[in-house]
């Protein structure tokens, strides 16, 4: 029975580790894109669709 515990702990442990890696990667990606967008906006760069809207108004 104790030998089985090792397999159970290993499968839950591996799942938690790998899912944490996936979630962490998505959060890091989110931070990277948010910072890049902020940096572009402070430089005054706008998307084409935004400038078009400005022209129309």
């Amino acid at each position, binding site marked *: 029975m104790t030998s089985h515990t090792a397999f159970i702990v290993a499968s839950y442990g591996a*799942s938690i580790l790998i899912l944490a890696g996936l979630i962490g990667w998505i959060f890091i990606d989110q931070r990277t894109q948010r910072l890049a967008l902020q940096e572009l906006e402070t430089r005054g760069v706008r998307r084409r669709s935004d400038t078009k809207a400005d022209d129309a108004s």
Partner: protein
Amino acid sequence: MSDAVSKTGRWIDLANPTRFLSLAGAVLPWLSGMTMIVLAAGFWMSMQAPDDYQQGATVKIMFIHVPFAWLSMMCYTIMTVAALGTLVWRHPLADVSAKAAAPIGAVFTALALITGSLWGKPMWGTWWVWDARLTSVFVLFLMYLGIIALTRAMDDPAKSAKATAILTLVGFINIPIIKFSVDWWNTLHQPASVIRIGGSTIDPSLLWPLLVMAIGFTLLFFTLHMMAMRNEIWRRRVVAMRRVAARSAERRPVQ
């Protein structure tokens, strides 16, 4: 007629990435909160569940292995629908959805293989056999890796979208093969026991934790998929804005 027009109008609203971003911003806190609650409840129920009369405590691996395997197929099915959206309707979010889903699907497939292997060793006496179910799921994992590579092989997402969509559609043939592999061929893997004609063969004391865990991991999938889609939209905006910045820098006279 006017009703049909307004319906299409609403659809186009949903296709608008900006609308999607505000929807994601509103939905994500709730979705992630629900994911955490359901997964915590599922985990607690799994720990309380009794041992199986044949498999002993290793039945606990079922509570994560089965949801991972379900999700690996559900994710691919979502990507197939997205591929149709790219090819038929050229829906601007379809390619974003497929590209964002692929790594998540690959992770769930890998986890299904890993937990299955860790369950197979004590119960079957082997980590791995090249039988129909295991091999077809391994092929699914390779398909995910191929799709991930293709979505990232070209700088212009418009170019890779079509090729990825076609590859995804062709690969969908694997999904019914995985599902029915246990009926069509002799395999070590057991046949369907939860969703089957004649009702589930699993005792309610084990079925309930499994269902709650499955709902929890499905919510986790949708949370992560929505976050990854939002990241992908932002990434494309950053690329577009950098292009605009480079072009306006070119136009500016040299000082």
